[in-house]
């Protein structure tokens, strides 16, 4: 694995490997000294063409916890606002010796271009591109689901009890049902999650108003429903993932995807009545930032089954795992790893 551009590229084994590595990274984060020397001397550039405090801080924290040097580059106030192209920015980064570029861009496919155009040698990590992909978000969602619902945790009736530290290591998400609710059309989180959760064996149901379901969704490996109550009642989802609705899409003045916020909340908001429909073990997720009172009520957001704050913490562990797997090893030798003996077995300890 040289880059992380989309969850569609990940095999089940690769995805489990990332989640297992994240579990070990999370274990180190409960120690008094959280910093590891693993990526000392490596440089990670956070290249953010689109505003995102949460994702950028998460990547920055992850890189710093692994002792990498971090350069934050935001398009605002940089030469990009003077008209510099992605190519010239990339060549600058290459000249400065970046080992990894974390890129957030408003255009779908910008990370793919950066990775494949030959402008940079560094590893490229997609931190959200347009309406396309947000792979680390999907990985942290899968990690959170696995921690709470895989294996022995599956039958736990008390969602408030904290999962064991190593819960679910080595396991996939087979047999779980995840409902993804809200603005699927504009959501890279939904796209990434459908692919990754399906790869890991879970069943995904998208729930959205017909106007917010993308064209061509029938080719996706998931079910689509327009009725949230039916999915929550009969579908018995193990996890309900609410998507953020952007305020500018709420009324007919700005796109007209649904008539009014109130109607959206009535039909697709997770309120206290719908919260009571859920099974005891079902968890409530949200990629943040939340619109309380629109797609999720305050009661749902603050309920014991909401794992929204934990998702943020898990995001750091997952991004540490991705940075470790992309940067720590010498990928040119990866092919020989499959048949070779590990150095420990060869008596190199």
């Amino acid at each position, binding site marked *: 694995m040289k880059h992380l551009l989309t969850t569609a590229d990940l095999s089940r084994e690769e995805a489990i*490997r990332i989640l*297992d*590595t994240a579990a*070990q*990274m999370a*274990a*180190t984060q409960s*120690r*008094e*000294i959280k*910093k*590891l*020397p*693993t990526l000392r001397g490596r440089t990670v550039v956070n290249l953010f063409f689109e505003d995102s405090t949460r994702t950028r801080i998460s990547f920055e924290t992850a890189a710093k916890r*692994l002792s990498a040097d971090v350069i934050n580059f935001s398009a605002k106030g940089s030469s990009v606002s003077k008209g510099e192209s992605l190519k010239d920015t990339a060549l600058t980064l290459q000249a400065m010796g970046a080992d990894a570029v974390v890129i957030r861009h408003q255009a779908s496919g910008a990370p793919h271009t950066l990775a494949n155009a030959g402008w940079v040698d560094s590893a490229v990590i997609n931190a959200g591109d347009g309406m396309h992909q947000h792979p680390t978000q999907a990985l942290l969602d899968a990690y959170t689901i696995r921690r709470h619902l895989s294996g022995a945790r599956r039958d736990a009736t008390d969602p408030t009890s904290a999962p064991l530290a*190593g819960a679910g290591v080595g396991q996939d998400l087979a047999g779980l049902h995840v409902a993804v609710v809200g603005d699927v059309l504009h959501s890279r989180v939904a796209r990434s999650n459908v692919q990754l959760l399906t790869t890991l064996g879970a069943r995904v149901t998208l729930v959205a108003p017909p106007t917010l379901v993308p064209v061509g969704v029938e080719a996706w490996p998931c079910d689509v429903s327009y009725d949230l109550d039916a999915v929550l009642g009969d579908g018995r989802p193990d996890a309900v993932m609410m998507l953020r609705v952007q305020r500018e899409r709420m009324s007919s003045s700005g796109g007209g995807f649904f008539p009014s916020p109130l109607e959206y909340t009535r039909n697709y908001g997770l309120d206290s009545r719908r919260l009571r429909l859920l099974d005891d073990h079902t968890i409530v997720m949200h990629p943040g930032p939340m619109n309380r009172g629109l797609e999720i009520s305050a009661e749902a957001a603050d309920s014991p089954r909401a794992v929204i704050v934990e998702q943020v913490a898990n995001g750091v562990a997952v991004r540490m795992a991705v940075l*470790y*797997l992309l940067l*720590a*090893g*010498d*990928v040119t*030798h*990866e092919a*020989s*790893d499959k048949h070779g*003996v*590990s*150095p*420990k*077995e*060869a*008596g*190199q*300890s």
Partner: protein
Amino acid sequence: MTSGPAVPERPATEQTAPVEPPAPTEVLGAPEIARALTRIAHEILERNKGGSDVVLLGIPTRGVPLAERLALRLAEVEPGLDAAGLVGTLDVTMHRDDLHRQPPRAIGTTTLPAAGIDGKVVVLVDDVLYSGRTIRAALDAISDIGRPRAVQLAALVDRGHRELPIRPDYVGKNLPTSVHERVHVRVAEIDGDDAVLISQGPTSPEATTAQAAGEASR
């Protein structure tokens, strides 16, 4: 002084003949390993005047079952000790200095005894001691999780060729080897049986010739 054996002139006939890798030689069997561990356990108790302050940290993969066996032996000799409470595992992957030169490694688990390691005597347990780099990484890893009173090192096999100033406190067997040989430790918990094997590493004629020279010079 060189660290490895010199490579002598190779006869022309050896260049063409394919070299069959010889079968691994068993250096230690199950009874010898058991005896070595029992001896190490006694040495640990003697040196530390009992086992009350001792914590055994096994280095994955094969150091972990060895540490568990040592703990059982400590508890046998000193009935007051709880074997399970003495043992932990210490993963050193993220502290290694060769991460950039190899494919990404899977990260193992670190578990500590409930009482932690602050103020204790930590005995690191590994199967083979070679360059010393794993132990250097382990010392770094330990400093991140606590401050033990002392750190000691137990290795089932010391095969020499140290690259760092590191010396074991307890050794099961000193095994002078050539750098081209490979030492395999098999433990029943992972491999099904207990044994220490030596095999030839790279099967190229150069390596074998060098190996033969190394044997002869000892």
